[in-house]
């Protein structure tokens, strides 16, 4: 029984990692209606930027804020330089672009900061949270930040004009243009925001998994799984999905005989496929209805 409780708590803690990343995935999906495979590497690069700033003596929160700004600008720049020229290209071209970006960012980070792991500080500390040895204050803090981020995103999309405009630009670009929304800049804004959220995710994840150029590879796959499970159009779904994937993965690895550790990663992939087949819009997403 103790093992069960421990594995669930450990799952929630890892789930927070996935939830954070899934939020960034949902953000970009809201803006461009596609999954960005380079999302993880962008977050990793942002985290390195934050790390570098701290090495130069900038205090944590200063570096944090500066990293968010730089990441936002970087996201917008990537969209303007790389993907705006491809706006009318078929989806496969975009996918190729994402993968190229992934490889480029990974190598650039490796070249600049080498591949040894680096410690990334946490503002929350590592003491046990509420007396539980299984969740540290950092992980609790991470869950907290994820929830705050979720509330902010929800408010942004539901209650601000610009949020509404962005949703319109993603789901019905043509109609949006007709009512006077600058859809092109909405996409750029989406990239910037996704990149900034990724930066937050990266800076929260790095203290746990250690900072190095490949740190987001596995995380992004689980982030995708979480976002798909929760519904790609729903920030709430992404967060819930993140925690579910984290817990499910641990329990399956511990209790289902034959799954063990070797099949832990495939579980995430199987989850993606299963959800896409049975409930393509996820647990919380809106079903897409197309008029034919």
């Amino acid at each position, binding site marked *: 029984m103790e093992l069960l409780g421990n594995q669930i708590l450990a799952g929630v803690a890892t789930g927070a990692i996935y939830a954070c990343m899934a939020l960034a995935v949902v953000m970009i999906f809201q803006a461009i209606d596609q999954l960005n495979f380079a999302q993880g590497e962008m977050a990793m690069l942002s985290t390195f930027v934050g790390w570098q700033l701290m090495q130069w003596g900038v205090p944590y929160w200063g570096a944090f804020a500066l990293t968010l700004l730089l990441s936002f600008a970087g996201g917008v720049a990537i969209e303007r330089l790389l993907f705006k020229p491809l706006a009318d290209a078929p989806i496969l071209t975009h996918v190729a672009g994402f993968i190229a970006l992934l490889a480029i960012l990974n190598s650039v980070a490796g070249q600049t900061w080498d591949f*040894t792991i680096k410690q990334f500080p946490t503002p929350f500390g590592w003491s046990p949270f509420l007396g539980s040895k299984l969740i540290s204050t950092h992980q609790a803090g991470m869950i907290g930040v994820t929830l705050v981020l979720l509330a902010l995103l929800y408010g942004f999309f539901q209650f601000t004009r610009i949020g509404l405009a962005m949703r319109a630009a993603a789901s019905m670009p043509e109609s949006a243009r007709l009512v006077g929304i600058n859809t092109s800049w909405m996409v750029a804004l989406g990239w910037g925001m996704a990149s900034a959220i990724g930066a937050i995710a990266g800076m929260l*994840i790095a203290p746990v998994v*250690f900072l190095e150029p490949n740190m987001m590879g596995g995380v992004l796959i689980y982030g995708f799984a979480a976002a798909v499970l929760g519904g790609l159009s729903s920030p709430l779904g992404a967060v819930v999905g993140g925690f579910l994937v984290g817990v499910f993965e641990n329990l399956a690895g511990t209790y289902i005989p034959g799954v063990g550790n070797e099949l832990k*990663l495939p579980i995430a992939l199987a989850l993606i496929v299963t959800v896409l087949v049975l409930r393509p819009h996820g647990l919380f997403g809106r079903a897409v209805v197309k008029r034919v």
Partner: protein
Amino acid sequence: MISIQTLRCAVLSTALIALTATAALAQKKYDTGASDAEIRIGNILPYSGPASAYGVIGRIEAAYFKMLNEQGGINGRKINFISYDDGYSPAKAVEQARKLVESDEVLFIAGALGTPSNSAIQKYMNARKVPQLFAASGATKFGDYKTFPWTMGWQPAYQSEGRIYAAHLLREKPDAKIAVLYQNDDFGKDLLKGLKDGLGDNAAMIVAEDSYEVAEPSIDSHIVKLKSSGADALVSITTPKFAAQALKKAAELDWKPTYFQSNVASSVGGVLKPAGFAIAQGVLSANYAKDGADAQWDDDAGMKNFYGFLAKYAPDANRADGAVVYGYGHAQTVAQVLKQAGDNLTRDNIMKQAANLKDFAPDTLLPGITINTSASDFHPIEQLQMMRFEGETWQLFGPIVTAEIGG
């Protein structure tokens, strides 16, 4: 049917070749890849991809040979070190090995990295009878001189390391309940086998085994599971990132087993510092090389050579990175083989000299550890010393242990 004329022609040319060869024998002998002016050495490393952290080995080796060339080369010949990227993909390693052998015409390949890549090229190299020297992997199978006489490893085999931990446990903590965390690949399984072989009849001391995949973002849940087994010793057969995660998680759970950390992830700067010195106190490991970031070697003659080399030829290199130390010692061993080979630069003689290293001590190996090989011993480094992490450095203790692998 062969006409008389063709036959005569063949006999004549054979005689001619034999004549030239005999004339050369008196002084110098060359195979493809060697000449009066240069020796071409091939190398394959993951400069890109998941294991690209090891790419720095190639840059250090290239820098080392550049230094030798500036000092006049080896026996008057310049080294032409040709290094290609395989992205840690076995298929690509085969492609690069072919390119090196057939197109670049290297004398031999030295220091291809990784168990998968070396396994992939092993058959080809042996079929072509081109030396696959000092494979950068601790897999025990690269010392199998009977089946693969053209392949030789370099660092201690992982099985040797496992045996040393087993011996330490049997001696110091015979009633231990052991938990093992291992990477699910050749490296992890090889070391685990050594541990089990070393424990012998006491293998039941292992109460829990758990493996992880390198693609997993975080291995926290494995540590939770192993702790719940009630073990009081943990053997962490892990690579750097996961080693640091495991140390940190065990500390967070307030689990304080007798902790063994596999050598590949024992770097102070690369693992223990990021994990946190406070939680790494008392961790045990075994080593054969000096740590480039450890101040205790500042006055060591060998390490002074090493630091001098870094300052001049690789100023960007991070001396805390174990791969940098590795590249230097490895290149030095290759150079030693070439020195011994003298003017007889045939592939056959390269293998012969590689299997004839006697008490050779590269600058970066621990005092007392030397490289010895013979026609029936293709494991160059077979000695290790136990060490314990105290303060901010590894403290070596106990004797230098030789762990030869039976069979």
